């Protein structure tokens, strides 16, 4: 439906432009047609006018001959000849073949006339065509006497109905008369071109010829001007338009019988279907139909106009206009489609990323730095928000959730990224979860928009809950540094702490006490009661030792039944002795293990820094020596590396009878 609505204006524009073009085309064609007709009519008028003018001139010329005869009183051959000679019928009068005198005689005068003519220098003169007629009007003189004109001598025009009609009309009207179409008597078949005659009556001078009967009585002959139509038209002066062909018919009916002339000698059928115009011209009481044919050349010159150009250009412009309108009309829809596709793609992409990120427990954040707007992906927005947080802006909310210990370092790292000193902000820090717990998150971010001055505008990034990874890493580290049975630091961790304590003690001048604790007669317990009991015993030993020291002290298990105790910042030998004794005493207490009671003792060797060794190795060796000596002295005692520092004899504290010589369980 929407597409249909969209195409309506396009269709309207197309139809309107097409309609306007067609209208303009039609109008131009009509105008061109009108111009063509106007031009054709103008040319027809000009042609007709020239014909009438030329014929009027000839008429005037014959009136001169008529006047001459009237003036001289008779038809004098010499005078007539000189007169015609004086007319100088030249190229300008090509239409007129000659001017003849037809003398009217009765039948009984014919022989006499012929005889007279032959005697006067025309030995071949005869009246023709032969035949009995009441009257004859033989041509007795044809001027100029050149070319074929002499061939016409003796011809009797009264013998031909067309000529006779014209002669009689002239006789009766006293005016010049044109004959109908005739074949000129001196033309042969090879040169048969239509001709006509202009005839003026000659009346006997002094006789009245005001009325018809009077004219017949006074008539003595005619002046006959002989015309060939093609030559007449050729001699017409005046510039005709190119591409027009003149055709002339005798009378008013255009048919083959009346055909007088066709320009260019061409075939009239060639012009069928083309423009033509007719005019009837009446010359000397006789009508001709003058027809002008427009040739294709004329029609294309006058009738074409700019119609085709209008059609082409209008069609082209209409098409382009429609195209533009189509572009305009559909650009919004197309842009919308593109935008929808982009949005869809983006949403799909976002959904994929969201799925991927959220599936992995990750979140996305987008921070508009200037406005402070910070958006989290849904799965993270919830876990961070706690009561009272709603009033906070994004960044403040985040900072408020950060672990205080991480704040300083993170702020510095963040500032580096904002300032462009680092390309990417990468951090792992702790944040308080909605449930109040601290969780480790890995945050990555980068600036994606800055203004012209480099001020950061927008930062986007991801965050992941890495608490589990961190815990796993912590557990691995713990396992690497602790004895799995007793959960006491192992040798490696203890060595680190010892080094640390020594370093610190060298700086502070404090004492460090290192104790080697070896359980006395532990092996028999393992052998007699099994390793499970042995392990339980070791765990209990570790717990008791742990209870005997400060948090800052370290007790570690470095062998099967060998333990070490580190007392950093030991104030004095006495302090060390107290702790050592406390441990010895604790270990000398009975053990209740899995329903069994047993007892062991311990031999403790103590070395002090810096007196008993300057480094860990020396100190350890000396503590070990001291422990050996304690063993040698009967076990269950504390032995300082240097004599004189040892504690009281354990026999003072422990009833002798209570100390078993062999480890055993008492139920």
């Amino acid at each position, binding site marked *: 439906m929407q597409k249909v609505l969209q195409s309506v204006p396009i269709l309207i524009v197309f139809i309107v432009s097409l309609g306007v073009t067609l209208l303009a085309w039609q109008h131009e064609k009509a105008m061109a047609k009108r111009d063509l007709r106007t031009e054709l*009519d103008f040319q027809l008028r000009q042609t007709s006018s020239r014909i*009438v003018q030329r014929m009027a001139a000839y008429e005037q010329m014959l009136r001169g001959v008529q006047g001459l005869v009237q003036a001289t009183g008779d038809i004098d051959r010499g005078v007539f000849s000189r007169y015609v000679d004086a007319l100088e019928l030249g190229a300008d009068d090509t239409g007129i073949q000659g001017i003849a005198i037809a003398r009217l005689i009765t039948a009984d005068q014919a022989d006499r006339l012929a005889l007279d003519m032959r005697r006067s220098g025309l030995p071949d003169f005869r009246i023709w065509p032969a035949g009995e007629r009441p009257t004859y009007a033989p041509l007795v003189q044809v001027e100029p006497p050149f070319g074929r004109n002499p061939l016409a001598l003796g011809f009797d025009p009264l013998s031909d109905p067309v000529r006779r009609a014209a002669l009689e009309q002239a006789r009766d009207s006293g*005016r010049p008369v044109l004959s109908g179409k005739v074949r000129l008597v001196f033309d042969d078949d090879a040169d048969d071109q239509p001709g006509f005659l202009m005839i003026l009556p000659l009346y006997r001078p002094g006789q009245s010829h005001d009325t018809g009967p009077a004219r017949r009585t006074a008539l003595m002959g005619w002046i006959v001007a002989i015309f060939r139509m093609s030559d007449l038209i050729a001699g017409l002066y005046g510039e005709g338009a190119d591409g027009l062909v003149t055709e002339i018919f005798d*009378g008013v*009916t255009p048919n083959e019988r009346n055909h007088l002339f066709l320009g260019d000698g061409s075939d009239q059928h060639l012009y069928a279907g083309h423009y033509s115009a007719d005019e009837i011209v009446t010359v000397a009481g006789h*009508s001709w139909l003058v027809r002008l044919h427009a040739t294709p050349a004329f029609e294309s010159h006058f009738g074409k106009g700019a119609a085709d150009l209008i059609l082409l250009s209008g069609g082209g412009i209409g098409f382009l206009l429609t195209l533009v309108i189509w572009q305009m009309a559909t650009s919004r829809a197309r842009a919308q489609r593109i935008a929808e596709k982009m949005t869809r793609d983006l949403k799909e992409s976002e959904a994929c990323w969201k799925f991927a990120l959220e599936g992995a427990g990750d979140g996305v954040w987008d921070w508009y730095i200037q406005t402070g707007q910070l958006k989290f992906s849904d799965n993270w927005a919830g876990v961070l928000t706690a009561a009272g947080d709603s009033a906070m802006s994004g960044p403040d909310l985040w900072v408020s959730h950060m672990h205080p210990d991480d704040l300083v370092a993170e702020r510095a790292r963040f500032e580096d990224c904002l300032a462009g000193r680092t390309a990417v902000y990468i951090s792992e820090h702790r944040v308080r979860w909605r449930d109040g717990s601290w969780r480790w998150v890995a945050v990555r971010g980068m600036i994606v928009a800055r203004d012209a001055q480099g001020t950061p505008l927008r930062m986007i990034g991801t965050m992941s809950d890495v608490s589990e990874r961190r815990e796993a890493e912590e557990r691995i580290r713990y396992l690497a540094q602790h004895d799995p049975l007793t959960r006491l630091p192992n040798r490696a961790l203890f060595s680190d702490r010892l080094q640390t304590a020594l370093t610190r003690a060298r700086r502070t001048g404090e004492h460090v006490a290192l104790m080697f604790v070896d359980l006395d007669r532990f092996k028999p317990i393992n052998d007699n009661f099994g390793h499970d009991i042995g392990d339980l015993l070791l765990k209990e030993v570790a717990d008791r030792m742990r209870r005997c020291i400060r948090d800052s002290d370290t007790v570690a298990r470095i062998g099967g039944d060998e333990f070490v105790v580190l007392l950093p910042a030991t104030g004095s030998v006495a302090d060390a002795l107290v702790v050592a004794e406390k441990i010895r005493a604790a270990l000398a207490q009975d053990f209740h293990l899995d329903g069994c009671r047993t007892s062991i003792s311990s031999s403790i060797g103590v070395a002090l820094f810096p007196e008993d060794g300057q480094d860990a190795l020396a100190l350890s060796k000396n503590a070990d020596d001291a422990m050996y000596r304690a063993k040698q002295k009967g076990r269950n005692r504390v032995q300082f590396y240097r004599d004189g520092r040892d504690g009281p004899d354990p026999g003072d504290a422990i009833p002798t009878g209570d100390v078993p010589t062999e480890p055993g369980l008492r139920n």
Partner: protein
Amino acid sequence: MHRGCLAFLVAVLLATASPGQTAEPSACPRPYTLALHEHGLLYSADTDRGIDKDTVDQLVERSGCKIIVSLMPRARIWQLIETGALDFSLSGITNDERDQYAAFAWYFADKYYLLVRKDLKATSIDDFQRAAKFQLGVIRGFRYSPNANRLVDTLQADQRVVFATTLDPLYTMLLAGRIQGMIIEPFDYPALQEASIREATQLLEFNDPAVPHGLIMSRKGLSDAEQNRWRAIIASMKSDGTFLRIFQTYFPEAMANSMVNY
């Protein structure tokens, strides 16, 4: 009626002023030229008679001037009037274009009619105009009353007009069916009396008032003073009944009267 009264007054005034002018020797500074055209009762070359011929004779007599008369097609007459090569013609009507180069002295008015073949079954001018096949024959150079002019112009635009120099061939063409109509005036009535024409044709009337006809004077050939002198002569011919007498020679009395006293 109002126009008739006004024309009468002008005619009287001019007539009273004319004798003095005609007596002046400078009234005929040169021979004038006048052309007739063959048109029914106006002039027939065959008989050398007609209203225009009689009018010329009167003009010669009253003016005392030599007037060289020739016969030529109407279109040619207007051309020569425009160029000034011809001084006068007769029975002319005007239009805006002709007013530019010709002045007139009116002396009669008549109506135009469309002569059509009876077998067309056309009962009005509109019928004739609507029939696309009908051709109209007109004389080149003729103009008519407004509705007749409109018909001619419309048909000419549709290439439905055949031009002729005189009316005679148009009658022939009408009878032969080559044209279906022609515009005539009362001068052409005698031709209609011929049996062949009378039986084959009928007259349709244009709804136009009678159109004034008059002496045509070339503005280029004749000064304003000369034009006024000839107007005065025409007016005197009207006022003294000369024109009425001339027209009565060719028309029934009532018709002659209506034409001259329009």
